[in-house]
């Protein structure tokens, strides 16, 4: 069993240069996406099948002062990965190192993973007709290299390593930031069984567009089936059994009976 790996993103060091975005497109040979102006320098407006990472721009007003915040977003490589759970074709697997990898040859393009991902990190590629997302450059890692986005980051906001060490560094950074009066937190330590992308955030997760309590897509499955099956029992009784059952020869006063004989 190999040690789990993780990407570390320190938003307090990100300048929004989007070098990671370009490096990802280049290394993975992803096509450009045609976009329009969406009211922000943020572009393209969302990650998806042809854009696996990008920097999200957030404008937040704090006591009359405007803060311009950045967060690099991509697949979070969840331990409880919704995409892997819902995939009918078995196209998504979790590696021993915690990476969630999509096998393009197996993908049918049903988009179930697209609607199941709590981070909206999977999208259908116009180019291939399959769902695609960040693979944490596992082929680079296997060859002793860092992921392309990590390699490109000029400020050290994005780094990479064994998850235990990354987590320790993240906690250390949080205490440094807290000492200087910033309300810093680690995101991803326990969410969805532990993410393999860990963030140091200097504000609430929601400010950065992250769900405070992400849920695995299959969480409500059994409860939904349970209620539906109770419904099956109710419908089988009323109306089906009540209305269609053979009542014998005794005349019934209720409406609808006595007509069955004409059926």
């Amino acid at each position, binding site marked *: 069993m190999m040690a789990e790996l993780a990407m570390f993103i320190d938003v307090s060091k990100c300048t929004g240069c989007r070098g990671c975005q370009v490096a990802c497109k280049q290394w993975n040979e992803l096509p450009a996406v045609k976009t329009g102006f969406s009211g922000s320098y943020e572009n393209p407006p969302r990650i998806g099948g042809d854009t696996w990472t990008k920097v999200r721009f957030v404008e937040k007003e704090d006591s009359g002062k405007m803060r311009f915040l950045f967060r690099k977003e991509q697949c979070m490589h969840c331990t409880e990965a919704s995409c892997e*759970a819902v995939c009918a*074709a078995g196209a998504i697997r979790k590696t021993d190192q915690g990476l969630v990898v999509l096998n393009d040859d197996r993908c*049918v*393009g049903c988009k179930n993973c697209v*609607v199941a991902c709590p981070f909206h990190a999977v999208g259908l590629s116009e180019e291939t007709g399959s769902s695609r997302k960040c693979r944490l450059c596992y082929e680079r890692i296997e060859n002793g290299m860092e992921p392309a986005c990590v390699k490109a980051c000029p400020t050290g906001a994005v780094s990479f390593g064994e998850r235990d060490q990354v987590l320790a560094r993240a906690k250390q950074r949080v205490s440094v930031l807290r000492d200087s009066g910033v309300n810093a937190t680690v995101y991803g330590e326990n969410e969805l069984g532990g993410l393999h992308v860990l963030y140091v955030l200097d504000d609430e997760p929601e400010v950065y567009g992250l769900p405070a309590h992400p849920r695995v897509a299959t969480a409500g499955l059994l409860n939904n089936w349970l209620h*539906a099956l109770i*419904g099956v029992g109710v419908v089988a009784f009323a109306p089906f059994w009540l209305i269609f059952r053979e009542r014998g020869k005794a005349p019934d006063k209720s409406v609808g009976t006595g*007509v069955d*004989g004409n*059926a």
Partner: protein
Amino acid sequence: MHEIAWPVIIAIYLFVAGDGVAAFYTGILANTFSKGKYERIAKIGAYIGVPLIIVGLLMLIIDLGRPLSFWHFVLGENFLPIFRPSSTMSLGTWLLTAFTVFGGGYALTWLAEEEFARGWPVLKYFASRPGLRKTLGYLALPFAVLIACYTGVLLASTAAPLWNSTPYLGLLFLLSATSAGLSSIILILAATKSDRCLIYTFSQADAIVDILELIVFIILMVRLSSAAPESAALLLNGEFSVLFWLGIVAFGLVVPLVMEIYELASSKKNVINTIVPVLSAVLILAGSFLTRVVILYAGQANF
């Protein structure tokens, strides 16, 4: 607004699949509970159900990014059958496959006895086989019922708050499908100038399912309003409110229900006017389709 991953073609699939299997199990259940009085309804149910499921499967395949790879749903990398219990879509694929085989065989036992189909090559093996028909019908029945539930559960196992915040979507889709299935049978009965009292009986059953559906819809919306208020607002007073209130609630549920109850309560059964059951069946079918469209699109609007 987020991009739409599952477009209207999926809403059509959810509708025809639910409507089809419901017509099928309505026929079998009515015939079983009546100890064989509704044989013709069972046949009509099979004739509605099996073609609709096949249309639904085609819709599903057309919507895939890679339609020609659809068999990856059933065969794994080593070409052995693949079933993934955590995947509702995987479960649904097998339910649909099993229903198509058993329900299809059941429909063939009816078709083999039609005047025009006499002498068709393979069909003769299905002719005059009451035992085979009964077996195939009962084999297909559980799959039909589970498919009606599954169309809702599929949406619930996602990240969309409107779909996953309550445990009632499978139940709602089951009831909506049953009501649509009954309505489809009413329309066929009316189109074939069947006995009015028969139409009256099915209209009565439809009214009961309609009431159940209305109750579940209310419970679902109350629960959604507290669990995912933004999603509930989309339906109650946001982007989809006109379609929701006017299309689904008013013309899809309340108006047909009032019409059915009025007709059932006021008319003597021998003078019953089939216009009212027919019109309410049409409204219910339209409302059932709109329920799929609105829930599918509203779910993806704020996720």
